């Protein structure tokens, strides 16, 4: 799955659901970027598993919805924190 977040910057976040292990480090890091604290509901990224197969679904908000802020590509950070803290490399950046 590809999230085209900043077409004007030609940047995209590529999501490989198969590699995701459900650790939530990306969600925690994302919430810290937005709110300077840890809150699973204040992140732009959501990672959940469904059923006995643990089918993983990752959603990156491209628009702000209630508390969930839109991804701003971690403006002000050296790189998107979700990508930095994705140990199994399920999240990758494409473009520059």
């Amino acid at each position, binding site marked *: 799955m590809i999230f085209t977040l900043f077409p004007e910057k030609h940047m995209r976040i590529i999501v490989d659901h*198969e590699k995701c*292990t459900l*650790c939530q480090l990306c969600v925690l890091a994302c919430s810290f970027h937005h709110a*300077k*604290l840890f*809150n*699973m509901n204040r992140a732009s990224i959501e990672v959940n*598993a469904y059923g006995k197969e643990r089918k993983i679904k990752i959603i990156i908000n491209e628009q702000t919805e209630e508390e969930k802020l839109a991804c701003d590509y971690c403006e002000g950070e050296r790189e998107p924190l979700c990508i930095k803290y994705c*140990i199994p490399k399920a999240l990758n950046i494409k473009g520059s």
Partner: protein
Amino acid sequence: MNVFDGDVLRINLSNQQISTEPSRHYMKRFLGGRGVNQWILFNELPVNTDPLSPNNIITFGTGPLVGTLTPGACRLSIDSKNALTNGIGSSNCGGRFASELRFAGYNNIVVKGCSETPVYLLIDDDRVEIRDASHIWGLTTWETDAMIKKEINDNQIQMVYIGPAGEHLVRGACIVTDLEKAAGRCGLGAVMGSKKLKAIAVRGRGSISVKDPQAFFEIVDGLLEKLGRNEFLKRRGEYGIYCQVMWGENYRESSWRNFQGGYIPDPEQIAMINPDVFLKKFKQKSLSCFSCPIHCRALHEIKEGPYTGLISEGLENNDIQLFGAKLNVFEPSIILKLRSLCNQYGLDTDNAAGVIAWAYECYQRGILNEEITDGLRYEWGDFETYIKLLKTITYRKGFGDILAEGSKRASEIIGRGSGQYSIHIKGQELMEQLWVDKGWALGTVLSQRGGTHTRGAVLGSRFTTLSLEDSKKYYSMENIGKPNQYEGKVKLVTYFEKIQALADSLGLCTFATMIWAPAPDAINQTDMTRLLNVTAGLDFEEGDLLIMGERIHNLEKAFNCLHTDWTREDDYPPIRFMREPIKMEGPLKGEYLDVNKWDEMLDEYYELHGWDRETSRPTKEILEKLDLNDVAEVLKKSGKLGKKRSGNNFVNINR
């Protein structure tokens, strides 16, 4: 809230009262998780309470690091009076329940009393509800998971629950979270069942802040880097928890047929359960607990044979020892089936396989026959009978009703000399083999929750490649030595006891610490101290934290003194490990536990702890040194304080 904020949520199921209190004053002395839980139990649980009576208390606690980005900070410690031993009950699990509870604003849940009808708790931030669970009672853990999610229309709600084994008060019943992560030992599922508490569901939307974010992120980045280069953890991440050939040339020790002989004689059987078989034939993906980079939970799927379609998460070394070595099942898909059944019934695998192995050895020796076993022939490795037994134990049907009591109690009911084949520590089934590795044996036997290797045991084989420099720097040992050497192991066990108490109280998974993942690339006490200081704004020194670990360990010891009559005599291993050396040809042949050496280790152990060498009880001096004056006072009033002694106090264990 800051990591040191949050509440204790108190629920009385007898009168439906719900209240909260800040937990900070508990945390100052006992950190969180296991430490705070144990303090509440020591302070509030009446002596002589039957573990399965309404008077027992069950506590669920998270640690101050849970809910932050700290790697491996995901654990939930569940503590109560032990349904098997009457001493402390303490077990923990990973998953996402602990962090969700923290986000809801709670560090601990304390459940007292007993409901008249089945209930479950629903915690939705500030809203706490005791809900009817009549329609869920009787369901397996997997069915319960699906039912509650559907009922409250929340697919991502986090839960702990029991299966039918807990409902039927099976003494080896566990508590499960997220389908297959279990707080296994100590019969805590039966305690929940006795309270008619089927589940706790939690949804938290709150925040957790850290005092010094910049310093915190620097530490986290450093930890992720070093955990990422730890070769052992890499392997664990690739294979799953079961990742090493336990029966390599030098470590073929096993629990074969209820610990008869000490090894698996057939190399073909060993090959059948090689980790590579599970990796190549069954593994689908790696999964993590909350905030953990190790992703050690392998998801296996059976794709052929009678159990096609079964998906099972988190195969452990224990499963291989239990169903493979102990019960002689070597077909990997059947091992997966058996462990999965235990998780669905809410049976602890260690306790279930332990009592079955006892019954099988008794049958093998003619102590049990078909008249007692409901007509079943007990033949080692016959998995269909094992499947039947797991069910009869869970529902306490026929002979299963006796097996549900655990092998110690069952042997007291059966008599006929069956007690010598009950391989237990203080009443709880033993999973661990104890002939070779002396630090492993000592830590396992002295574990205050009744056996088990996760309270100070040293897995010596894990440290054989440790450099002398790292040995000294991280473990304060000139040389950890070979696994089968007695020398130096006592000091290491007492050190691991403290580190383990800290990890369990901070909410850290022990796999990420230097107890299981060898230093230098693992979380050590310096890391723990720094994490606590920068997140909570405290000013601890390393020594302070180690004292905290020792305090928690002594608190549990004091609980055991108060609630049991255990003495030095209860700190010896099952006689089999002293009388029946390993028979296998090769480097381990003849290994056993020497009783005189054991006595020397015990003396040194009590001495290092400042405990009475005759009774094993803590002395007033050590309790006061650890800021446990109030605990010393309680023990004094009960006549259970230890005395300072000199000379040896060996117990004659030639029983």
